[in-house]
């Protein structure tokens, strides 16, 4: 049994031994406490009788620069009852709500669209909410994304990632927009298909974290930002002038040419964006473009 569960037992005992106070509010609270203790006890017997197949052990990275005893990075074990369909995120939430409310991680949508819970799970970048525990070998090791500064526990500093995204001027900027307020810019279905995958990025940072080049070269734009540049450079509505400028941005020293086609970004992207392909295509575009100029 994990240390967290043991700790809880002692806490419950302490609560029970408190003297009861008379006011109605206190009384109700006391009743509630008892109910809580009962529930707790029941849960623990349930947990104690679970065999290994019905629980999962999480080994979770812990670190807090501010709190004594947590300044030295370490791993905590949490034993969590398993049910079919349970994700890594569900297990983390369980551990936080039942065992240790200071366990810290980002999450919000629980449906793989907000990009906030990219984690390093069993040695690979994944979205916690999209990863089924049943697909993983236990104990499940959960760490913050590598190559990013850890703020606390599983939370990493995303500033650098955002800066790289912003560096490619990530916004639509057409040479010409139709005059009328109700007049659309036509876009062919083929062109939409071409950019479709690139528009799916949820800024989770998994690709950047998996990239060896990005790890060694802090200025490298990285796969997500280059994909963002691709998204606009390939959009026929922006026009030729803007495309030239976009190519110039990604051709710079720390741009597309750094990519050594290792495919790690493509492998981890939870949105299946063919990142490496997009980077290669931009390399080709930029060669074509330069030939044209010379």
């Amino acid at each position, binding site marked *: 049994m994990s240390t967290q569960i043991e700790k809880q037992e002692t806490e419950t005992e302490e609560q029970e031994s408190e003297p009861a106070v008379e006011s109605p509010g206190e009384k109700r609270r006391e009743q509630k406490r008892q109910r809580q203790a009962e529930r707790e006890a029941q849960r623990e017997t349930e947990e104690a009788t679970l065999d290994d197949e019905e629980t999962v052990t999480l080994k979770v990275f812990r670190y807090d620069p501010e709190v004594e005893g947590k300044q030295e990075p370490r791993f905590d074990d949490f034993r969590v009852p398993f049910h079919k369909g349970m994700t890594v995120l569900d297990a983390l939430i369980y551990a936080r709500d039942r065992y240790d409310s200071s366990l810290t991680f980002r999450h919000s949508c629980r449906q793989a669209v907000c990009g906030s819970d990219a984690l390093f799970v069993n040695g690979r970048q994944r979205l916690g909410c999209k990863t089924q525990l049943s697909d993983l070998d236990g104990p499940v090791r959960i760490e913050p994304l590598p190559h990013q500064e850890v703020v606390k526990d599983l939370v990493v500093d995303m500033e650098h990632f955002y800066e790289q995204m912003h560096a490619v001027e990530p*916004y639509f900027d057409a040479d010409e927009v139709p005059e009328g307020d109700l007049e659309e810019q036509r876009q062919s279905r083929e062109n939409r298909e071409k950019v479709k995958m690139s528009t799916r990025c949820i800024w989770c940072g998994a690709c950047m974290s998996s990239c060896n080049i990005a790890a060694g070269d802090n200025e490298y734009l990285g796969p997500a930002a280059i994909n963002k540049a691709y998204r606009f450079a390939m959009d026929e509505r922006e026009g030729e002038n803007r495309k030239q400028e976009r190519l110039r941005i990604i051709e710079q020293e720390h741009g597309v040419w750094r990519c050594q086609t290792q495919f790690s970004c493509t492998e981890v992207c939870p949105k299946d964006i063919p990142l490496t392909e997009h980077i290669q295509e931009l390399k080709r575009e930029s060669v074509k473009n330069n030939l044209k100029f010379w």
Partner: protein
Amino acid sequence: MYEHDVIVVGAGGAGLRAAIAAHEEGADVALVTKLHPVRSHTGAAEGGINAALQEGDSWDLHAYDTMKGSDYLGDAPAIDTFAKDAPEEVIQLEHWGMPFSREEDGRVSQRPFGGLSYPRTTYAGAETGHHLLHTMYEQAVKRGIEVYDEWYVTNVAVTDHDDPEKRECHGCVAYDIKSGKIEGFRANGGVILATGGLGQAFDHTTNAVANTGDGCAIAYRAGAPMEDMEMIQFHPTTLPSTGVLISEGVRGEGGILYNDNEERLMYEYGYANNDGELASRDVVARAELTEVNAGRGIDDEYVHLDMRHLGEERIIDRLENILHLAEDFEGVDGLDEPMPVKPGQHYAMGGVECDENGETCIDGLYAAGETACVSLHGANRLGGNALPELLVFGARAGYHAAGRDMKTAEIQTGPSAESEAGDVEPPVEPGAIDRGSEDVAADGAAVEPTSVIENTVARERERIETLLERDGINHAEVRADVQETMTDNVNVFRQEEGLKTALRDIREARKEYQNVAVSDPSRTYNTDLIHTIETRNLLDVAEAITLGALAREEFRGAHWRAEFQERRDEEWIKHTMLAWEDGTPRLYYKPVILEGDEETYEPKERSY
């Protein structure tokens, strides 16, 4: 203290649109948001955005559908403005590069959606919200709009006149999640609350974990009433295990609902003979639960949604995202099998009372998006109407806060807009909690903005200090109690007794909340602290939902009552309002405006 002309709280669709509008108007605007903008829940919207774009369609048809969909609880001035502005807003998104799905001729595609008389839902695959959110964030980046991301707003700084309508909002207080630093934000023009939904009041919801009704609760305690809070939309097609949404687009494209006898329930059991699966959401949600309760549900819990007959090509072209969701969260291959679905909390039609320009009865305090209730959706929101709402009314709030001269609002706000007093005695006295933070901020005549803000900051510091320093219980238990009772008692089907039980449980949870404490002592990224404050907000919104549901003794739109099986127009074409009076909700009513720009809407029966 930070200072800007306009402070927008929340950076989802509504917040971003408001910020861009304020910026266009020349204001110095900042976004303060607890999540980085691209993490906002607008990104989860799947189905689409309604706007009358094509010949053959028109704004007044859209307005009519919206009014009818609202079951005549929407306000005509809001609905007309909405339907008129929507097309331009949608095309503007297109001009900003949003990757809409396209027709052969390169124009944006439109598809049918529930309750619409014309296929006017524009979309980008089945991930419309993702594209809308990212497109707008990109435009905010382009304009260099300042973003305070991962800053949690705990309160607004409002002067303390007794009469809420004399109050002024000068700014807000937020703390930097990364460092724990608590700061005041002064807004010379206005504060716009765009904090999204409140789905976390229920335990089966399509909403994100961050959707905790913060803006509603903050505005309410500052004195802006909440309107029609009982009107909660339950979406008929959510995945049973997680609440993840299966877009209405599936039914729009021709998806079929089956019960356990493999009957096409919407037709065969006569729930909606004309529109079948495309009837309004409330109708379909009730139909499904009726089937389940009658023993015709699958595993006694859900029904099946089948899209296999649409063919692989069409599914991948228009609903690809649905395949991923069904696979990832339910282990079902939508190309090969039907998907399990059941109703889940989805959307709050009610919210902070505001007018067509987004302003509440408190000067300088605005609300937009799902947090707000201009009264567009009334008793039932049509699918695809929330995204254009946040465009239209987000923009208007932004312009107005930045000082643009706007047409005088026709929708009155504040207790003075009241028509009659409420007659429901809450069965239990709704106890107030941590009083320190719920008073408004300045003393008597002290209306100097800086001191109002400083006072609020001091109070919020104290509240947070206390939470961090004292010992007590974990908020998670309180939150779970509220979510459970709401799901058990204030769901699709509602009964007086259940509602009273819920009120009692909420009251109990309030008591409990007085003992919560944050056990993580850290100032760095303290999520325990955030969740604890959010839980307090959830208590206020849950109570408002339940009180509203108890007060409204009729059956209208999403609000079904066992004891009252009819829409009672003579008595109930009115909004339920709740005002915060020293911790006790005061219930009153306000008339619905049925008089529109061109015509007055005549309540008609909704038949499908």
